[in-house]
């Protein structure tokens, strides 16, 4: 059975405001779901709801046909989330941060140094995250994503703080991930060039 993410009639309120209502989508391997919309339109909230961090007003999300709500651990084992806040410890070094990550999630067998080299952060291994620039911290978060062996990537504004070369690198990595039959949900308001199957949701 192939992995599949489906959402059925999602509705989410924040306070009195309805962010979206009756939202449904289905994501199959090799597909990218692009969330578009103005600032504050609920892209991040939708992503947090998919990750199970906020309760939906109504609707259900299914992973491989099983509701995520009752099967949270299996679902979380299949996703990695690159959030707006990178979630790295400022006082620890790059290596220490990523080593901790290996305690939480199954890791891919990619060569660690190769990944860092590709992201251009191989020289920063022994530096505390605090001393890295915002763009470099993003790249560390990307390294964390690449090192985990999961089919579903959730990326919230992955291009923030990245230079032009970094942005094209993100698109390249995403394309590769989709080619490997991975899935990706991305919130972005830039034009992106990613080969493969792209669905769009305008919030």
């Amino acid at each position, binding site marked *: 059975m192939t992995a599949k993410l489906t959402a059925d009639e999602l509705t989410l309120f924040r306070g009195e405001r309805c962010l979206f209502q009756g939202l449904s989508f289905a994501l199959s391997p090799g597909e990218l779901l692009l969330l578009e919309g103005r600032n504050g339109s609920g892209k991040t909230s939708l992503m947090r709801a998919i*990750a*199970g*961090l*906020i*309760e939906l007003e109504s609707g259900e999300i299914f992973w491989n046909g099983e509701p995520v709500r009752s099967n949270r*651990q*299996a679902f*979380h*084992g299949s*996703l990695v*989330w690159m*959030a*707006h*806040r*990178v*979630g*790295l*410890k*400022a*006082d*620890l070094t790059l290596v*220490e941060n*990523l*080593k*901790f990550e*290996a*305690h*939480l*999630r*199954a*890791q*891919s*067998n990619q060569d*660690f140094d190769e990944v860092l080299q590709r992201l251009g952060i191989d020289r920063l291994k022994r530096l*505390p995250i605090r001393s890295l620039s915002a763009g470099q911290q993003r790249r560390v978060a990307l390294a964390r994503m690449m*090192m985990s062996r999961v089919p579903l990537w959730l990326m919230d504004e992955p291009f923030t703080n990245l230079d032009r070369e970094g942005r094209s690198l993100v698109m390249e990595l995403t394309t590769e991930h989709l080619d490997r039959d991975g899935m990706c949900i991305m919130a972005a308001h830039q034009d992106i060039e990613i080969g493969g199957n792209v669905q769009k949701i305008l919030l």
Partner: protein
Amino acid sequence: MTDENETLGIFSGMLGIARRDLLLAWKRPGDILNPLFFFAMVATLFPLAVGPSPEQLELSGPAVLWVAALLAMLLSLNSLFLSDYEDGSLDQMLVSPMPLSALALGKTLAHWLTSGLPLVLVSPVVAITFRMPFSVTGVLMLTLLLGTISLSLLGAVGAALTVGLYRGTALLSLLILPLAMPVLIFGARTVSLVASGDGVAGGLYFLGAYAVLVLSFSPFATAAALRISNE
């Protein structure tokens, strides 16, 4: 980075996060030393204010040391989940495949090792200012050892509930203190009773039982509270 093909066990996440927090504490020793200084300062200033009468010091010693230890623990609790909340690590914890209760227990373990255990270790030094006999000091350490475990575990629930609030310290104290009262009462009374020649077992049994009771629900309550706070 190792290639782990088998699924990771619960202990992997728990020990992993405990190790990470200990490493963080090692790199920022101020966070450990602040509550410790507070404890030492309260406990050494008190005898100066009360005066040099030995009877009075011997009488009030256990109570003052215990109150100071309790407040020092409260002081250290506020930061338990705060930095994780601020830098987004908490979000990452919440979406990790590890059970959140195991991660919470790991964090609580690291918290106790960096706040409770140091208090236990410096207490004999501070106890000298209260002319506490050697045998009683041993009992003080034992009660603090069992008591701080309960306080760390209880405090984790409170810290998790107040983590999303701006300046939640006062609320945290209000939440924790009622549940911490038995620990304070039995901790301080056991030491005073031993000082006046009574048995020690009853108090220690109670503190031990209370620690086990709190251990049985704290990780789950902390996990549930973290989910609510982080909505």
